[in-house]
């Protein structure tokens, strides 16, 4: 499901693909060529979290972050349940990308926690430990975070 949503990001010229990680850095979904394996993206996710924690040491959460490299850019959009990360060329149409990021992050955010749990359960070797995602207490309702317009409620 997340992969299908992320695929929409590639409608924007210059976007190579995207992936989503939770607030603890676990991979929750990706739409990238196969050379980006889950183990690498999990490690990237953990570093994204550390980057976020470093930049947000004063308390304010960042809205987005753009890193420019020699030939590529990496966009990070912070959403309540994780980070949406987009790889693009340097010549990407930035306004179009921002719009796509906004729309995609709204749709992806409610799915992140469950998707990460599913991915970690399905990839014991390269993926995260299942203990990283606490199971819901027996008899309790789903712990999916309720959000309204991208904000926790």
């Amino acid at each position: 499901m997340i992969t299908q949503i992320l695929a929409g990001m590639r409608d924007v010229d210059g976007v190579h693909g995207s992936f989503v990680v939770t607030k603890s850095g676990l991979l929750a979904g990706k739409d990238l060529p196969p050379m980006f394996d889950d183990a690498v993206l999990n490690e990237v996710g953990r570093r994204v979290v550390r980057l976020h924690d470093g930049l947000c040491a004063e308390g304010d959460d960042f809205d987005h972050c753009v890193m420019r490299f020699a030939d590529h850019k990496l966009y990070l959009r912070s959403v309540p349940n994780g980070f949406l990360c987009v790889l693009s060329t340097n010549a990407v149409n930035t306004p179009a990308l921002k719009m796509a990021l906004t729309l995609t992050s709204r749709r992806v955010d409610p799915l992140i926690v469950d998707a990460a749990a599913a991915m970690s359960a399905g990839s014991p070797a390269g993926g995260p430990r299942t203990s990283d995602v606490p199971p819901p207490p027996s008899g309790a309702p789903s712990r999916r975070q309720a959000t309204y317009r991208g904000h926790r409620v």
Partner: protein
Amino acid sequence: MPLPADRNAVDDDGFRVSLEGATLPDFVQMECLAQSNRIFRITSGHRIGYLFFNKGQMIHALSGDHVGEPAALEILKWRDGSVEPCNVGWPDAPTIHSTWQNLLLLSAQARDESGRHKLVSFPGNRSASATASGTLRSDPTPLVKREEPAMSAPPSSQSQSLSLAQFQAFVRLDPAGNIVSAKGDAEELAPVAAYAARLAELIGNMLGMEGFSSMECSFPKDRVFLHRERSGNLVALKVPADADVGALRERFGV
């Protein structure tokens, strides 16, 4: 934009001010915020330039070799001299279309780039010749960035201070993490910048993206820019969220 061609006469009302320690960016800011419609002659050593203000914007500039924005940026580099209102002809049309905030930002960047290899040092003796009306002279501040004098530069330009009033914080770190120059709350910004740049490089390497060059991070109240210079130095800037950062983005490529 209609220009005040019929307002060549200098208004004699008001105070005559001798302001020491001001810089040209300070002066530009003052004129623009005052919505003035005036022309000023800027003299610095042997150099003369003109700045034209109309309705709170700098709309035209002239210097020895340049017209418009290049002239404005050249004049804004001058550190010592005098400013006086004058009567010269208004241009037929504005030659500067950037906002004055943008111009000051570009000027600060240019000055910063030109002095990036310079060291922070204590202020030395300074000439005390500022007596004329509207004389500007850079005063020593606790953190003063001194330009090494060019062989051909006039003595008056030998001492220069870093004026980056538009940034909440600024810091330049060498590859070893030592602070080369700084302004504002650099002690807090420096470690954040160094760590973020390192993580960005690691993230890029893992994703097959070499050559980290810059980063922009947007917060509710401010933005942080990082830029890895060719020398390996890292520049970090913090600006208010509502600041016009188009020039910064263009320069850093983010």
